[in-house]
């Protein structure tokens, strides 16, 4: 390959994405809850969707 752009000390763009992810308390709590309480869903005979939120370690 024939790179013709002179190296200017970095391979990153001049403006990198500087912002970091700062999880809000609400987002963290919801995420932790959802990951520890898996969700399952099934369709009942009348066509309704029945959801079940399982407890931690529950199968």
């Amino acid at each position, binding site marked *: 390959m024939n790179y013709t752009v002179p190296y200017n000390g970095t391979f990153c763009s001049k403006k*990198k994405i500087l*912002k970091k992810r700062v999880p809000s308390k609400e*987002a963290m709590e919801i995420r932790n809850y959802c990951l520890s309480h898996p969700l399952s869903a099934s369709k009942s005979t009348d066509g309704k969707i029945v959801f079940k939120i399982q407890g931690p370690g529950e199968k």
Partner: protein
Amino acid sequence: MNVVEYTHTLTPLARNFDCGNPYLNLFLRSPDALNSSIGKTYVYLTEANDCILGYYNISAGSVDQLENGFRVKSGGAIHIGYFALDERAQHQFQGQMPDGTNLYLGDYLLIECLDRIEQIREGFVGAAVVTLASSEAGEHLYRKHDFLDLDDDLTFSLSEGEGECIPLYLPLDY
């Protein structure tokens, strides 16, 4: 959650999917939902795999800086091109955390989607951010999960149909 890659065998289930937005319904029913050139579609299914409750489509992208009329890449992105939940399923789901905070089906699916993106980033494709163009209806969900407005000098490419939407992004580095 039973979330799997959308394949041809699952397409008959798309006929009964209704998120209330004809455009998003149409995408799932179209061949584009199976087209890897557009993105990968993942569907949230019931345990018996007999009903689609939601879906999302992700693809590679970038966030660009506008510089003297040119777009210069600032960082790689994983773009959530489509994200939708079946309207009836949303109404039938009732979840609450012990402190009384309401949970929504969108919370579960978005967290699953973001975890998948983290896995892709760790194992396969580098990216600095997650991008999406939100409808007004979905904006609250994304902001609740820390999505931010784009800086004025940053942009990313929108798909057909996303022009009226709100561009948001989520940095992936902590």
